């Protein structure tokens, strides 16, 4: 019984609360209306006529409102349920939209009428009314802004929009008085213009987002996980575009335009020994020759403090751009991560396992039959898995086996990692030996061994990991994360081995540099002596810059290495794409006609798009860019080019030769996983770059910092020479350890404080969640108990009636039949359907009749009374059905 009663009771409570508000409102409006009426009486006749018409209209409306009052009140409060929405929608088809009893529109109609009347003489309004009007205008504006988020049918939205726009237009100007009025009107006009501009700008902005259609198409073919890769790729492209603009605009172009031209000083000239082959394609492809002695690399830049007529501070700019690149990247990555974290919010608890599976597992973006089939299959398996888990939630018979397999898999992966690390170290060592012997004596393979080995490892190890991960039997999402983590470790190991090898090489070069420096001083001295002896007054003979001996310039070497690495990486990516995807697809497609088994369904089949591998490739590529960008300003440009090409190439490859993944799953939340990896890579790749910048002195004869002890000395130099003395003083005070250390301490404290508060918030959150859950359970239990009690009551009552019936039975059989007939008829009339009951029961005792239906009836009648046909029986049927069934059992 209670079950039935509960609902209307609760609703009644709500209604009472909500009733108060409209009551007050109506009082106010009535008052206002009186005022206006008085005013009207004073006005001219034709106006009176008009007012009469309006009054009549209002009366009509009022009557209508009286009728639907109850309902309106229910809706008037902010608590609008979908149920009501649905009803409303149905009703709207029958009533005119303009005169609908939808709370907002009706109220607004009222207001509009009022102000229509008052419009004639806005000055005559009292300040109170003006305030009201202002409020109304403001309300309308807010309504217009929030309109797109309203769950109303479009027709209604459009009507509301037009009405409120008209309203605002009409009365906005009437607000304010005298002088203020003009300003107000101006303001309104400006805000309108501003809105228009904003809208146009928004339109322009969405038009500027590149590849939107392509990505959407892929999304519909392959689901959101593949699309997430392309969205990530586009995001990376954006970042690289900005990095490219920075380096290109502030470093490369100024140097090319305003710096000394090519061939004026030794560092800007190809040395005599290399001049013959400097234009060869093989050399240029290796970024030697003319490419090496150009703005593309660190060594080309001059250490002149200011260049050109702009007095552009080249070395300072170079340094700041290097720092700015890293800082900007950090900022963007962290900001995106924070935003993603905000969006994803909570959702780790497992309390709605089945419901979530049921309502959110379909990917609404899928529009391809194959993908849809895969999705259906994967949903089915996931349900089956969940059912199995539910049925035997504690099956630990082969957990040992699983554990063993997982340990084994991890062991194998570790072996792979160690092996690949050793291989790279070995290859790098060997290549150093080759380099000492001179590159020309070796074959192409021996020269490019390092890059090739790294690329090949990056290609084949993930496949190996994939095979190994089949042992582990994880959920695909978890498996993907493991896989990503492993490939991440592999790439990281490779990269760091490479860097360590590079460090060795840098040290070698520096040794070489020392010797050369000594030799150069000797050479200069001898030169000086020679010229001095011949001609004591003339300056030393000017040598062609190509003939001047020079140091090895390790910075350029590092930059070249990175550029080569990027190029070879890009090449292998593209070639694997062409061979592994395209060629395979072609072969499978056309050899299938003359092959002994089905190639498309059987062994080779078409390849799937490997999201994890591609994302990691992208991330590591970016890491290399960050690492090398300081020594090779051309790297961001190269990367932009690469990303651009791979966007098109991969889009094409995906659409033409890949099949949707077998286990399609949504890429929710994993975006932040990518971001986290990107952050780690960013940190790890800036580490060596910063280390080299801070600890290793720059080469003596190349690059913007030549002649300085350390690269960052450029800051101090600028401070000393370009800023007033007091500034450098202040700076030196500010940078002394006595001030810096406390500051760092303070920051650490602040971080600690924020972290602890966030922790406590999190705890509170968890607590609240727990409370909510226990409350829910309590509720459920209570309800169940109530239902049980009601049932036992019923049983008793039925037993009682049965005994009574048995007594009566023999006495008046005839009478009983008549009564039964009557009862049936009445209930039929009431329900519109015969009661699903047992026939031989009669004379329900009034004690067992639930009060629920009685309270329920008027309510449903009243709230539904306005409804034409349609929803009525549908709404009532289940309830009516339940009440009798409860009674009779």
């Amino acid at each position, binding site marked *: 019984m209670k079950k039935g009663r*509960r609902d209307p009771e609760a609703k009644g409570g709500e209604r009472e609360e909500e009733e108060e508000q409209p009551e007050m409102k109506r009082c106010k409006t009535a008052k206002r209306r009186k005022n206006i009426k008085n005013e009207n009486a004073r006005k001219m006749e034709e106006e009176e006529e008009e007012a009469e018409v309006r009054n009549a209209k209002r009366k009509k409306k009022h009557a209508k409102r009286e009728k639907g009052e109850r309902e309106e009140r229910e809706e008037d409060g902010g608590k609008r*349920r*979908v*149920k009501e929405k649905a009803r409303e929608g*149905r009703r*709207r*088809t029958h009533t005119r939209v303009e005169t609908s009893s939808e709370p907002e529109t009706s109220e607004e109609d009222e207001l509009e009428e009022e102000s229509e009347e008052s419009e004639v003489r806005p000055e005559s309004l009292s300040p109170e009314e003006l305030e009201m009007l202002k409020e109304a205008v403001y309300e309308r504006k807010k309504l217009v802004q929030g309109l*797109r*988020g309203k*769950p109303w*049918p*479009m*027709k209604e*939205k*459009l009507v509301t*929009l*037009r009405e409120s726009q008209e309203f605002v237009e009409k009365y906005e100007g009437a607000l304010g008085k005298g002088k203020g009025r003009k300003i107000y009107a101006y303001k309104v006009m400006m805000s309108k213009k501003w809105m228009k501009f904003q*809208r146009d700008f928004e*339109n322009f902005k*969405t*038009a500027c987002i590149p590849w939107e259609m392509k990505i959407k198409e892929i999304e*519909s073919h392959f689901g959101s996980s593949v699309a997430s890769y392309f969205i990530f790729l586009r995001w990376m492209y954006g970042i690289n575009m900005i990095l490219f603009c920075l380096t290109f605009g502030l470093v490369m172009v100024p140097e090319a335009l305003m710096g000394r031209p090519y061939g004026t000083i030794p560092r800007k000239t190809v040395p005599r020994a290399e001049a013959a082959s400097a234009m060869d394609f093989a050399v240029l492809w290796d970024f030697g020759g003319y490419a090496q002695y150009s703005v593309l690399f660190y060594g080309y830049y001059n250490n002149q403090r200011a260049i050109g007529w702009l007095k552009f501070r080249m070395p300072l700019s170079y340094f700041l751009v290097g720092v700015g690149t890293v800082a900007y990247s950090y900022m963007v990555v962290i900001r995106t991560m924070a935003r993603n974290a905000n*969006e*994803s919010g909570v*959702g*780790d*608890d497992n309390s*709605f*396992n*089945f*419901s*979530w599976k*049921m*309502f*959110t*597992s*379909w990917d*609404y973006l*899928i*529009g391809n*039959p194959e993908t849809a089939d895969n999705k*259906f299959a994967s*949903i*089915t398996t996931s*349900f*089956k898995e*969940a*059912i199995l888990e*539910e049925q035997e939630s504690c099956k630990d018979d082969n957990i040992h086996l699983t554990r063993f397999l997982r340990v084994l898999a991890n062991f194998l992966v570790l072996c792979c990692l160690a092996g690949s690390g050793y291989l790279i170290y070995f290859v790098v060592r060997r290549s150093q030996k080759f380099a000492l012997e001179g590159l020309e004596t070796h074959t192409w393979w021996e020269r490019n061994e390092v890059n090739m080995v790294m690329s090949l490892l990056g290609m084949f190890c993930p496949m190996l990991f994939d095979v190994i991960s089949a042992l582990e039997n994880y959920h695909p999402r978890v498996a993907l994360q493991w896989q990503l983590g492993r490939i991440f470790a592999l790439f990281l190991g490779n990269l760091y081995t490479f860097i360590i090898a590079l460090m060795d090489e840098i040290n070698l070069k520096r040794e070489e540099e020392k010797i050369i420096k000594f030799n150069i001083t000797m050479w200069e001295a001898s030169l000086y002596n020679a010229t001095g002896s011949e001609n004591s007054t003339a300056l030393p003979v000017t040598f062609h810059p190509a003939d001047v001996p020079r140091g090895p310039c390790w910075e350029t070497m590092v930059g070249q290495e990175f550029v080569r690495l990027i190029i070879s990486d890009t090449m292998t990516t593209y070639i694997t794409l062409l061979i592994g995807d395209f060629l395979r697809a072609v072969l499978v497609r056309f050899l299938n006609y003359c092959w002994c088994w089905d190639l498309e369904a059987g062994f080779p089949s078409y390849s799937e798009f490997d999201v994890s591998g591609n994302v990691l490739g992208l991330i590591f590529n970016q890491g290399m860019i960050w690492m090398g960008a300081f020594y090779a300003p051309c790297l961001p440009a190269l990367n932009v080019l690469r990303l651009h090409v791979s966007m098109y190439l991969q889009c094409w490859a995906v659409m033409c030769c890949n099949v949707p993944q077998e286990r399609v799953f*949504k890429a*929710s*939340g994993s975006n932040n996983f990518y971001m986290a990896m990107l952050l780690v890579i960013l940190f790890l790749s800036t580490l060596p770059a910063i280390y080299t910048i801070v600890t290793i002195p720059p080469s003596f004869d190349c690059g913007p910092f030549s002649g300085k002890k350390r690269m960052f000395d450029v800051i101090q130099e600028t401070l000393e020479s370009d800023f007033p003395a007091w500034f450098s003083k202040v700076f030196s005070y500010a940078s002394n350890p006595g001030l810096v250390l406390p500051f760092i301490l303070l920051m650490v404290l602040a971080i600690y404080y924020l972290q602890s508060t966030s922790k406590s918030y999190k705890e509170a959150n968890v607590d609240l969640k727990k409370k909510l859950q226990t409350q*829910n359970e309590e509720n*459920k239990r*209570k*309800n169940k108990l109530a*239902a049980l009690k009601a049932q036992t009551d019923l049983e008793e009552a039925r037993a009682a009636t049965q005994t009574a019936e048995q007594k009566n039975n023999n006495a008046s059989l005839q009478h009983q039949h008549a009564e039964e007939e009557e009862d049936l008829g009445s209930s039929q009339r009431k329900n519109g359907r015969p009661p699903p009951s047992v026939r031989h029961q009669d004379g329900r005792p009034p004690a067992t009749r639930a009060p629920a239906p009685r309270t329920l009836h008027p309510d449903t009648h009243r709230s539904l009374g306005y409804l034409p046909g349609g*929803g009525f029986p*549908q*709404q009532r049927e289940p309830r009516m059905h339940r009440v009798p069934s409860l009674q009779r059992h």
Partner: protein
Amino acid sequence: MGNKQTIFTDEQLDAYQDCTFFTRKEILRLHGRYHELAPHLVPMDYTNEPDCKVPLALIVNMPELKENPFRNRIVESFSEDGMGNLSFNEFVDMFSVLSEMAPRELKAIYAFKIYDFNVDNYLCKEDLEKTLNRLTKEELTPEEVQLVCEKAIEEADLDGDSKLSFADFENMITRAPDFLR
């Protein structure tokens, strides 16, 4: 718009932009798609707001909806008459709600409507069964379906009436990690 044929007046476009999550271009494209569905029914000129509707059968064949197991329900719940005939206004409305810009709350409201097969404003067991059967192409046995539906109701039902009201549904769906990414 230039010298092209005008489909909408500027005011109409502005109004649509205020009422939906689309830009001007997207609205025009939507109209193009709508026109494509039934070229003989839908006029190219919408400046005087003609009254025409495209039947359900044509709409569910759009590639966007074709593979969706709930396509009929989606179209029906957006149509004014509940039969799935959509006017252009409702068509735009549907895509606006389904677009990625729409907020979670709005999506939840319409998602509830979509899953509510018998339009009784509650998700009862039959609704869930239908949902499940459409999701899995009826590959689960009836017992499994029963079990899953019972479990789902048990999980999400807060007031213990063994069916899901909108409040229950909203409470459940807004916490889902997969709902709206």
